[in-house]
Structure formats: structure tokens, C-alpha cells
């Protein structure tokens, strides 16, 4: 008998990632050098952070398409703040970024909770609004590296214990989600709301409030990533991370998080993000034009969702057969 843990989605996805990495390594051993793998992880860190935030939103049967716009707006605001007040310490900037992101998440959440507007409509709207506000506050100008203070730019790149701070933040967020999802009432509530909203109401869970909380978490993480992104690439402009929301949703879907809500895991979101990150970083190494990346991630989404659907359907068939035998 194979232990059920090995048959899980996460195990299969982890296996697929290992096969992928092994295949690349057989031709290009330099790819699996620890230093390069650390680079790949660091490069994927923003996607991991956002995918985890998106995961809780999707768990509650919602979707947050405004994360990339939220990221870009927060990034622009902190960058402007930095040019106005270069002496502002990094912890303050972090606090501003997280609270601003959370505030934008709250706007999404309140519209979904209080006004009962479908989540996809809300976040489609706020996505264009947030993106537009960046243009309004910046006047379409870029904020370049020389306008940012050194401390502002250095924070995500500072190396501690062999990894940059950006990677450590991703690790912390992953650990935080393991606790949140597995060990707190709120984590349970996300699954309850997504699995069966009516039953959740009868168990005393406020469905709208839980969805709102998910949006605030997603927004706060988008804000945090906004600062890290702008500081890491040392540039802020209107279109940063354009279309990134779809990559985030893709990471969740590949990670086996059901768009119908209620099914998903931290490991799944993490692996889904890592899969996309590895593909993205491997393409230049194996000499494939980066133009292939979009088509590859698209195919990966379709294969992942088809795979998830067929695996859950197979279970249903087995039960039916048993029932037939019983009669």
C-alpha cells in the first residue's frame, strides 16, 4: 500500500518539480548549484508571498485580481515617501506598505461583504482603479534608483544566514500561513466558508466577515511585496507587475487550490509558485526564448486543473462501483 500522503496532489506536484529540475540538471548541472537554487527561490519569493494571500481568498470562494495593482500602488507610494523623506527608517516603510496594502484589501473585502457584489466584479474594478491612482499620484513619472535612499534599496537584498532578506520574508510568510491555516479558528473558518457557506453560517461563522478578512490578508501581503519589489528592482512606475495577478492565480491553480473554494493547502500554493518560478528561471538556462514562458504557464494551468478534476472524479466513480456491488 502506498501511504496516502504520497498520493496527494502536493506529493505529485513536488514529484513533477523534482523531475523537471532533474531533467534540467542532466543537461545543465550549473542550474542545481545551491547558489543558483537560492537565486531561483529569491526570484520566486514575491510570487510565493502573493500566492499564499490569494490562496485564502480563493479558499473562501472569492478571487482577488487586484493584487498586482495593489502591489504597484503601494510600491509607488513608499517610493515617493522615500524620495520625500529619505531618512524614514525601513521598519516605518514596511509598516506603511503593509497597512496601505491591507487598507486596499479592506476596500475589496467591504464591497464583497457589505454590498454583496460578486468578488470578480469588485476586484476587476479596483484593479483598474488602483492602477489608475498610481498614474494620478505619480503623473506617469518613473522613480529611479538614484532617487531612492540606499537603506530603502538595500533592505530586501541584505544577506542574512546565507539568504537575502527577501527570501527570509517569504519563509516567514510560509511559516505564518502554516500556523494560520492549521492552528487558528480563522484558518478553519476559511475552509468552512469555502466548503459550505450555508453550513458555515449555522456553525456561527460570519461568511462575509471571513471573506473580508481573507481580502485584508491578501492586500496586506500585496502591500508588503510592493515595497520589496520596488526596492529590489530599484524602480517604480505605473506598469510594474502588470498582469502578475494572473501568474498568482496560476500558481494557486497549479498548486491544487480549487477555484470553487474550500480545497487547498499552504504546501500546494508554495509548490505551485515554485513550479512557475523554476520554469521562468530555467528557460534562459536551457536556451529557450523567454517568449515561450507565457504559453508554458498557460499549458501548466490547463494540465493542472484537468488533472485535479479527473483525480477528484475518479474518487466518485469508486464509491459508485462499491454501491453497485453492495446491492
Amino acid at each position: 500500500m502506498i501511504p496516502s500522503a504520497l498520493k496527494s496532489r502536493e506529493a505529485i506536484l513536488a514529484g513533477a518539480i523534482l523531475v523537471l529540475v532533474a531533467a534540467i540538471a542532466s543537461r545543465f548541472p550549473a542550474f542545481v548549484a545551491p547558489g543558483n537554487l537560492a537565486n531561483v527561490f529569491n526570484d520566486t519569493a514575491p510570487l510565493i508571498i502573493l500566492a499564499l494571500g490569494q490562496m485564502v481568498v480563493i479558499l473562501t470562494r472569492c478571487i482577488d485580481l487586484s493584487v498586482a495593482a495593489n502591489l504597484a500602488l503601494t510600491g509607488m507610494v513608499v517610493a515617493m515617501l522615500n524620495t520625500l523623506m529619505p531618512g524614514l527608517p525601513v521598519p516605518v516603510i514596511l509598516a506603511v506598505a503593509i497597512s496601505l496594502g491591507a487598507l486596499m484589501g479592506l476596500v475589496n473585502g467591504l464591497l464583497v461583504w457589505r454590498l454583496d457584489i460578486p468578488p470578480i466584479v469588485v476586484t476587476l474594478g479596483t484593479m483598474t482603479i488602483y492602477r489608475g491612482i498610481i498614474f494620478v499620484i505619480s503623473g506617469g513619472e518613473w522613480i529611479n534608483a538614484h532617487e531612492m535612499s540606499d537603506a530603502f534599496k538595500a533592505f530586501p537584498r541584505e544577506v542574512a544566514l546565507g539568504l537575502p532578506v527577501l527570501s527570509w520574508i517569504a519563509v516567514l510568510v510560509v511559516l505564518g500561513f502554516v500556523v494560520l491555516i492549521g492552528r487558528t479558528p480563522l484558518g478553519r473558518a476559511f475552509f468552512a466558508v469555502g466548503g459550505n457557506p450555508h453550513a458555515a453560517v449555522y456553525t456561527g461563522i460570519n461568511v462575509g466577515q471571513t471573506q473580508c478578512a481573507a481580502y485584508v490578508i491578501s492586500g496586506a501581503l500585496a502591500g508588503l511585496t510592493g515595497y520589496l519589489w520596488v526596492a529590489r528592482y530599484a524602480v517604480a512606475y505605473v506598469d510594474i507587475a502588470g498582469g502578475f495577478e494572473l501568474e498568482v492565480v496560476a500558481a494557486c491553480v497549479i498548486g491544487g487550490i480549487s477555484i470553487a473554494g474550500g480545497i487547498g493547502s499552504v504546501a500546494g500554493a508554495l509548490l505551485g509558485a515554485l513550479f512557475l518560478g523554476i520554469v521562468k528561471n530555467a528557460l534562459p538556462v536551457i536556451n529557450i526564448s523567454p517568449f515561450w514562458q507565457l504559453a508554458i504557464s498557460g499549458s501548466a494551468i490547463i494540465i493542472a486543473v484537468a488533472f485535479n478534476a479527473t483525480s477528484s472524479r475518479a474518487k466518485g466513480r469508486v464509491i459508485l462501483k462499491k454501491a453497485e456491488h453492495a446491492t
Partner: protein
Amino acid sequence: MSTTAAETGPTGRQLPDRLKSPLQRFLGSWELLLLVVAAGVFVLNSFASPYFLDPWNLSDATFNFTEKAMIAFAMALLIISGEIDLSVASIIALTSTAMGFAVQLGADTPMLILVGLGVGLACGAFNGLLVTGFGLPSIVVTIGTMSLFRGISYIVLGDKAYTGYPSDFAFFGQGYVWWVISFEFVLFAFLALLFAVILHQTNFGRAVYVIGNNPVGALFSGIRVARVKFALFLLTGLMSGVAAICLTSRLGATRPSIAFGWELEVVTMVVLGGVSILGGSGSIPGVVIAAFVMGMVTFGFGLLNVPGIVMSIFIGLLLIGVIALPRIVRQVLAKRKV
């Protein structure tokens, strides 16, 4: 989400003694509200800029929405049936790339039209097969094919562009039928009528509503749910192909980033037109008026030199505002009664 409706229970529902008259229904309708908004935008625009009421300017303005609206008609049917297609803009990119490729092989204009419609249909069939054949959620499938279709364009084109379309091909996007009436506008009007008839006058249209309201009930009442949905994906693909022909003809060039972000504008147009994103209700006249509103807003702001991205704030606010306002009013009224 939809839980609150269930919580109120059957006691909240009352059957009226008699149905409202058509006039009463029209006065309380979404379409009238939109019409008022459209008229308001039109009047504001004509006060704001002296160039707005120029017939040629107005004719130019229609290009802001005709192509998107063609897709929006098919998308409206799809959303009413409870599905969605986010890959429409990418279908345009792939179709346009295929047409550009055909030009390189020496295709003439009729051949280009065939290629355009064919690729659009094929993309729609692919989406439809994945959704109805494999029973996958359409939002995820089409997020996937959105990357896939545009990704193929990027693989084929990279950072290059296809140009050199035959000169008679330009008619579809740049030609005028009579005075200021462009070919695209005539096509838009024809398709609006066609889709209004399909949705509101045929059995197929009835089936679309039934499926959107209750797919299981539809199945038990003898509607071939999967087949209807597949047909709707085909139709959306086909209309994206038509839009791709018009857009390619108008621009005269194909880049892989063509029509980027249009899927959101098309969905916005449909939702603004009063189609419930949850499926089951909506109308083609609503979508037509929404198309005019969005086109006029974009054009009016353009005349005032407002940058495109600021217009998008307004479109976003419009989308949330028109849906939020009636709900806020209803909530306030409900509180007052208690």
C-alpha cells in the same frame, strides 16, 4: 456571496396580484438607468468640448467600442449561461498572428477572413471542449488558455510584428459604408440585432437563461446543457475572430501584445450592461447601451486630453458604482422599513 438571499427564506418572497405593465417594467429597469447615464455622458461631453458634436469625431469615437462590443454580445450570452471566457483578447492575438502568418504565405483578403474566422472558432472549440467535455471550471480554463493563446503569438512573433496586409483588407477596419457610417459600425449594429434576436426570441436564447438559472433543472427539462455551452464558447471564439479581423485591418499590423487587457473591458461592458455575473439574467439592449456609455466616456475624456489610464479609473468606478448604488439604496430602504 449568495448566502444572504437564502437566509431571508421563502417568507421574503411575495407573488404580486398582477404583473407590472411593460411601461412600469421599463421604468424600473437597468436599461433605463443606463440610458440616463448615457444621455448624461453625452450632454456633459458636448458641453465640455466643442469638438464632441462633430459627426466625424463621433464616427471616430465608435471605434472605441465596436470591436469590444462584438465580443461583448457573445460574452453576454456566455455569462448569462453561468460561464465566462477570459481568453477573448488572447484569441484576438492568436487570430491576428495567424492572419499575419497567412499574409507572409501570400494569402489574399478572402483567405485572410477564412483564417481569422477559422482560428477564432478553433480557439472557442478548444475552450468549449475543456469546459464541457472535461467538466472544468471555465474561469480557470480560460485563464489558462489566455496565457496559452497569447503565448503562442509570442512564440511565433517574439518582439517582431507582421505588416504588409493587402490594401483591400483595410476596408474592414477603415472603410466607410455611407458618409460617416463606418463598416465596423454597421457590422456592430447588425450583430447587436442578431444577438438580440438569438437571445430574446429563440429557443436557444431561452435555453441560455434556463441554464444560467438552474443547470440541473435545465438538464432535466431536456436541454442539452453541454451542447448549448459548447455552442456559446464557439460563438465567443467566432466573435473574437471577427473582432480580430476588424482590429487587425484597422491597425494594419500585428504584434503579440495586440488587444492586451481587452478581456477585462469586455467583461466590464457586459456587467455594466446589467448582465448578472452569477448568470441567469441580462439583456442585449443593456450591453449595447453600456458599449455606448464606455465608448463615449473614453472619447470624451480623450477630447479633454485625459490620459487613458485615468479613464480606466472612471470605468472601474462606473463598474463598481452602478452595481453598488442600487444595493446601497435597497439596504437603506430596508432599514427604514424596519
